[in-house]
């Protein structure tokens, strides 16, 4: 069953602007991860945030996690054309044996030069 739901489904911004994508999930989790997928390629891991963490940074990426609302957000600051890709959240569900990540449907980000 699908766990994460990203919104918006698609986002188009100008280069230099910030992009925010949201993810909601349904069950308790051990951690939540964000991935990027460029067209025709595999997914690339961006950042992992554990259930006891509230915020994490990596370069131009900022991820927040609110376990009470079962939601997370990914902020990309000062976007570049190269950030154009689909972004997915994935949850490692508590009690699921931690052998699978459940992915959302993704947000397609277009950064216009």
């Amino acid at each position, binding site marked *: 069953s699908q766990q994460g739901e990203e919104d918006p489904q698609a986002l188009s911004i100008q280069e230099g602007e910030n992009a925010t994508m949201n993810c909601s999930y349904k069950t308790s989790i051990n951690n939540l991860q964000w991935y990027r997928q460029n067209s025709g390629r595999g*997914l690339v*891991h961006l950042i992992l945030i554990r259930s006891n963490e509230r915020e994490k940074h990596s370069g131009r990426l900022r991820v927040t996690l609110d376990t009470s609302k079962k939601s997370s957000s990914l902020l990309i600051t000062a976007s570049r054309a190269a950030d154009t890709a689909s972004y997915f959240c994935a949850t490692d569900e508590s009690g699921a044996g931690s052998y699978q*990540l459940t992915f959302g449907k993704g947000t397609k980000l277009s950064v216009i030069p």
Partner: protein
Amino acid sequence: DTAVSQTPKYLVTQMGNDKSIKCEQNLGHDTMYWYKQDSKKFLKIMFSYNNKELIINETVPNRFSPKSPDKAHLNLHINSLELGDSAVYFCASSQAPGSPLHFGNGTRLTVT
């Protein structure tokens, strides 16, 4: 060096045929996975293997069978292909349960 490699990149075949997709990882990871991505980009877990033992089989038809000759390889064999099997299939590996996945670049399967 490619960390997770899968072949072929493209596979076009007719209904009823049997085909295999190969996957190899050189990361020394213990767990490997197969995911299916449909035309709407939705990714669904098919199988995961930990130390050559099947951990999860997510309601996948038994026409699909994972085969792991060793912990660096997880191949996917599909019997009696159907139109609905058309999708992109991704192999992935992880160092430990719940840790980040490393994906291959996918195999686009088209069944005609």
